[in-house]
C-alpha cells in the first residue's frame, strides 16, 4: 500500500510535498519486475453457478475499508443538482444485487437462447481494472491511481466524491457514499460529495501473498489471477476450447479482467439487466483515445513556436537588409 494519508496530514503537508515531488517526478514505463508484474484475471463464465460466495467474501474482507459516515449528511448546494448518496443504513448496506459503496462485486445473470439452445450464464461484475484507466487519468485530484501491478484504486483520503470517475468510466463502476472524506474538511456544502468506492482487487491481500477474496473462496474456481501475458494466453486457449468469446482484452483499450463465455457478449448484453450499479457488457471504445490524439498537438506546439520565431527573425533580417540597401 502506498503511504497512508490522513485527511489532515494531506491538507497540511500536501502543498509542500507537491513542490518537492513535482521537481523529482519523471514518468516511467511500467516496471518489468516480476514482483510488480501487471496482473490480470480470467473468469471462465461456464463455471459460475451464482452461489454468491465471492460476493460475501468480498464484503467480509473489505469491511474495514467501507465508509462510516458520522453525523448528519451535509446540506448540499445546490440541492436540486447535488444529490446525497447514502448507502450506510443497515438495510442499504445489505444490498448485494448491484454495485454500491458497500458491495464492490455482484453477480449478473443472463438467460436466453443462442444457436437454438437455452443458456444461463452468470457473470461476476466489478471494476475491470483498465490498463489506461480514464478514472485515474481524468481524476482532477489524483485520487484514482494505477499501481505497478495494474490494480486501479481510489484513495479514500484524497477522493472528493465528485463522481467524475464514474462519469468517464465506460462501465460507470465507482459508487459514491456521501458524508465522508476530505471534502468535509474543506467546503462540505459547495465542493465534493463524499468518496467513490469500487473493487481494489484486494491489493492488501495480494501484497501479503494471498489471493483476492473472490478468487480464494470460489468453490467452482471460476477465476484465476496471474501475469497479463500468461492470462491472455490462457483466455485464448479456453475460448478456443469452448468455441467461445472473450470480453475485456480490447475493450476500453484493454483491461485486466478477461471474461470467457460460450455465448457472445452482445447476446449476453441484451439478456442482462442494466442500469445504476449494473454495468453493461457491450462495446467499449478506448475512452482515452481522443485525449491522447490531442497529445500530438502538444508535441507539435514547441516545434511550431521555434519555427515561427526563426521565420519571424529571418523575415525581419531580410526587411532590415532591404531597408539598409534602400
Amino acid at each position: 500500500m502506498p503511504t497512508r494519508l490522513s485527511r489532515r496530514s494531506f491538507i497540511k503537508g500536501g502543498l509542500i510535498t507537491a513542490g518537492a515531488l513535482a521537481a523529482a517526478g519523471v514518468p516511467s514505463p511500467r516496471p518489468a519486475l516480476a514482483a510488480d508484474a501487471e496482473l490480470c484475471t480470467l473468469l471462465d463464465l461456464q463455471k459460475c453457478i451464482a452461489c454468491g460466495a465471492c460476493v460475501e467474501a468480498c464484503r467480509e474482507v473489505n469491511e474495514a475499508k467501507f465508509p462510516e459516515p458520522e453525523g448528519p449528511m451535509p446540506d448540499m448546494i445546490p440541492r436540486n443538482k447535488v444529490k446525497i448518496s447514502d448507502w450506510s443504513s443497515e438495510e442499504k448496506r445489505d444490498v448485494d444485487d448491484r454495485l454500491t459503496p458497500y458491495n464492490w462485486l455482484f453477480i449478473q445473470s443472463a438467460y436466453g437462447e443462442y444457436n437454438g439452445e437455452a443458456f444461463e450464464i452468470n457473470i461476476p461484475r466489478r471494476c475491470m481494472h483498465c490498463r489506461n484507466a480514464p478514472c485515474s487519468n481524468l481524476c482532477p485530484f489524483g485520487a484514482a491511481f494505477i499501481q505497478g501491478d495494474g490494480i486501479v484504486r481510489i484513495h479514500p483520503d484524497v477522493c472528493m466524491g465528485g463522481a467524475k470517475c464514474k462519469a468517464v468510466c465506460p462501465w460507470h463502476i465507482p459508487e459514491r457514499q456521501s458524508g465522508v472524506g476530505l471534502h468535509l474538511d474543506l467546503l462540505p456544502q459547495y465542493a465534493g460529495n463524499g468518496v467513490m468506492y469500487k473493487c481494489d482487487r484486494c491489493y492488501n491481500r495480494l501484497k501479503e501473498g494471498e489471493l483476492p477474496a473472490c478468487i480464494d473462496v470460489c468453490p467452482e474456481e471460476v477465476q484465476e489471477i496471474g501475469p497479463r501475458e500468461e492470462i491472455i494466453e490462457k483466455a485464448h486457449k479456453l475460448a478456443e476450447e469452448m468455441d467461445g468469446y472473450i470480453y475485456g482484452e480490447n475493450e476500453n483499450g484493454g483491461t485486466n479482467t478477461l471474461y470467457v463465455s460460450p455465448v457472445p457478449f452482445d447476446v449476453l448484453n441484451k439478456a442482462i439487466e442494466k442500469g445504476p450499479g449494473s454495468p453493461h457488457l457491450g462495446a467499449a471504445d478506448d475512452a482515452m483515445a481522443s485525449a491522447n490524439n490531442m497529445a500530438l498537438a502538444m508535441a507539435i506546439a514547441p516545434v511550431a513556436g521555434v519555427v515561427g520565431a526563426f521565420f519571424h527573425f529571418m523575415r525581419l533580417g531580410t526587411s532590415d537588409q532591404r531597408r539598409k540597401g534602400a
Partner: protein
Amino acid sequence: MPAKTHPLQKILYGLALIVALFTGFGNMPLYGRYYIADVPGFGWSGDFFINVNVHILAGSLLLAIAVYAFMNSILHGEGRKQRLTFTGRLRVFFLVLSLLTGILMVIKNLPEIRFPLEMLIAFNFAHMGAAVLLLIVSLLALILQRPWKNNRYALRNRR
C-alpha cells in the same frame, strides 16, 4: 529599438489563456453542478472528454506562444534591451509551471505511462495552484495595466 509584440500574438495568448483556464476549472465536476453547462452554448463544458480535449488544445497553443516568445527574445537579443517587470516575471513563472505540469499530465494519459499516487497528487495540485495564481496575477496586471517588459534604456534615463 526592441521588437514590439505583434497584436495577433497578444490576442492568441489571451484567447488561449481564457479557454485553458475555463476548461481547466471544467476538469473538476463544477460546471454540471453550478449550471454553467445549462447555459445555452456551454453544454459541451459539462462533457469531461470534450473539456479535456479543448483544454489540451488551448494548452498546446499557449505552449507554442510561450516557446515563440522565448525564442524571439533570444534571437532578437531582447535581454539586453528589455527586462521583465515584476508581474511579468510572476506570469512567466506560473505560466511555465502550469505548462510543465500540464505536459506531464498529458504524458501520464498515454498508455503504458503510470505515475505513483503521490506524484499524481503533486502534479495535479501544482498544476491547479500555478494556474490559479497565473489567473490572479494576470487579472491584477490587466487591471493595473502592468506590462510584461520594460525598456532598459527608458529605465536608465528615468533614473
